[in-house]
């Protein structure tokens, strides 16, 4: 094969390229200041012994990391707690979100009450949702215990029993996050052409068969995106447990983000907190890369 002749850029193209760099510069500078610099600072701090309660700023290599991974039971507990919350609330929100999306996709004459009902939990601030559910599950005044008593049972201590606190948290998180799932899935549902259902109907598919043979496979890309988005945000779960249990009883419901927050803000251990945050960052990156690989493969196929 003959070597292809390499053409130089014309003056017009060179000027355009230069203009491009100039126009990009402000955004690049801003990103450096608010994203690159803090992350670099975090990574640097994680290698130091740096406590505001004690003087000194001493390089200790990976000691913070080895302590966290091999000796700090409270951190490992928080990782496990986070994993349980992800394992329960992500699939839970998917199932409920799918149900809500299917409901919202029905041809209602008046669409806005359904849409509003979907949007409301999503639009509510997380801490606010946490507070609502804290009152919901309150031992004395809570709505849940009021119902249980009405049914003639002894009211349980929702938020001070380690297992029940988890149940309450999961319910609150599923309630809060399934509307997000539903919104993504609803967008996915609306891209499925109506004629596919008509073709399936003529082909002989029942409503259930249409759901299995058309809706689910056509919705798969949206489901994957929703799952990955939700998983990435669930790794950082903080607000709802903070407002409902504050990690209690003890540290039974403490998540990674809460433990990092306590380490850094309450115990003022900047170095160790940075190391923990770095670990959480790595976990998030791992989850994100799964997402990126998925979208890349998708792009290649189409």
């Amino acid at each position, binding site marked *: 094969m003959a070597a292809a002749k390499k053409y130089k850029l014309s003056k017009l193209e060179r000027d355009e390229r230069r203009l491009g760099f100039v126009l990009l510069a402000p955004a690049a500078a801003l990103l450096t200041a608010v994203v690159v610099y803090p992350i670099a600072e975090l990574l640097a701090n994680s290698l130091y012994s740096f406590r505001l309660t004690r003087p000194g700023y001493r390089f200790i290599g990976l000691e913070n990391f080895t302590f966290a991974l091999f000796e700090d039971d409270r951190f490992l507990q928080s990782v496990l707690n986070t994993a349980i919350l992800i394992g329960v609330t992500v699939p839970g929100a998917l199932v409920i979100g799918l149900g809500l999306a299917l409901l919202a996709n029905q041809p209602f004459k008046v669409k806005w009450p359904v849409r509003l009902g979907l949007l409301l939990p999503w639009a509510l601030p997380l801490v606010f949702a946490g507070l609502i559910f804290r009152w919901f599950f309150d031992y004395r005044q809570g709505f849940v215990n009021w119902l249980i008593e009405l049914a003639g049972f002894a009211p349980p201590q929702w938020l001070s029993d380690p297992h029940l606190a988890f149940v309450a948290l999961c319910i609150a998180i599923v309630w809060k996050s399934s509307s997000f799932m539903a919104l993504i899935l609803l967008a996915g549902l609306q891209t499925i*052409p109506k*004629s*596919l259902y*008509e*073709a*399936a*109907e*003529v*082909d*002989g*598919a*029942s409503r259930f*068969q249409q759901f299995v*043979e*058309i809706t689910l*496979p*056509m919705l*798969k890309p949206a489901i994957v995106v929703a799952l990955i988005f939700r998983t990435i945000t669930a790794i950082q779960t903080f607000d709802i447990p903070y407002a409902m249990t504050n990690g209690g009883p003890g540290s039974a419901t403490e998540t990674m983000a809460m433990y990092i927050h306590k380490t850094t803000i309450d115990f003022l251990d900047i170095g160790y907190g940075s190391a923990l945050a770095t670990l959480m960052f790595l976990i998030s990156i791992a989850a994100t890369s799964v997402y990126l690989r998925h979208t890349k493969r998708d792009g290649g196929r*189409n």
Partner: protein
Amino acid sequence: MSEIVLKNVVKAYGTTPVIHGVDLHIASGEFCVFVGPSGCGKSTLLRMIAGLEGISDGEISIGGTLVNDLPPRERDIAMVFQDYALYPHKTVFENMAFGLRLRKRPSAEIESRVREAAQILQIDHLLERRPGQLSGGQRQRVAMGRAIVRNPKAFLFDEPLSNLDAQLRSEMRVEINKLHKRLRNTVVYVTHDQVEAMTLADKIVVLSAGRIVQVGTPDEIYNRPAAKFVAGFTGSPPMNFLPCSIDADGAAILLDGGIRLPVPQARRAVCSKLAGRRLDFGIRPEHILAEAVGSDVATVPAHVQLVEPLGSDTLGLLRIGTGEITGRFAPEAPLSAGATIQAGFAMNKFHLFAPDTGDAIRDPGW
């Protein structure tokens, strides 16, 4: 037997009727084309036969079974959609096999029927592909394959060729025609393209504003249009219309601008009954001749406004009296814009329409 019978079929949305009592008999094995402009209700009527739209009143039966309240899957019909509606996540094979699989046919039978249909449609090399990997024409074939594997009582086509480019459209038209000659199933085919209607149909149903205007063979629709609407819808270019009146003894048609067209002996009896009435005179472009030769040809001075050579023929826009008409001429006809020619009207081919109702004034002998 798989005849389709419609009795006084009505479709209304609320109190607004869109199909006003249609009666139609489609014989078993017949290729029936619904044709009409956008919004005339042809697709709605097809979807009512399919069961995708409810019926407000009347009866539809397919193969002797009243299907008013049967869902599409129990009507034993297959449909080809305008956008093909192929299942994008399934392979071509799975797309075609879907209906059989839902009907729990043994897999050996599914395999052989899909392969047979694929062979007929020349898509057997595409069976493992997905619809996204196919061209428009191939998708169209898969959509037809999905319909024919089930061997249903009737095929319903909803503007199946309108998403294809002109060349592919005429190719697929021939394919559909061959397929019907081979399978001899009952077909209901919706189109707004009169060429498809003329070439494919055993029976054409012309619809306008939710009513049937005329039912007939392509020959009847073209040569004996029941209404001005039908005449103006068929042919390319369509029929020319000029306001006219008829002289006292029915011997001549008088066009505006003082033009007198002698009526042939055979048509005078009918014309004499219409003497004095204002009518619309209709004549097809091919019945206008560049030279006045032969009997029953009326000669009219015509001013050539525009000449459109199409290669095989030449269209000429002519001013006659106060009106304009289009003629279709042989390419060698001596036409040039600005010239005045002696145009011939083939007076044994003209049509007359009542201007108020648009109904054709017909005589069995014409």
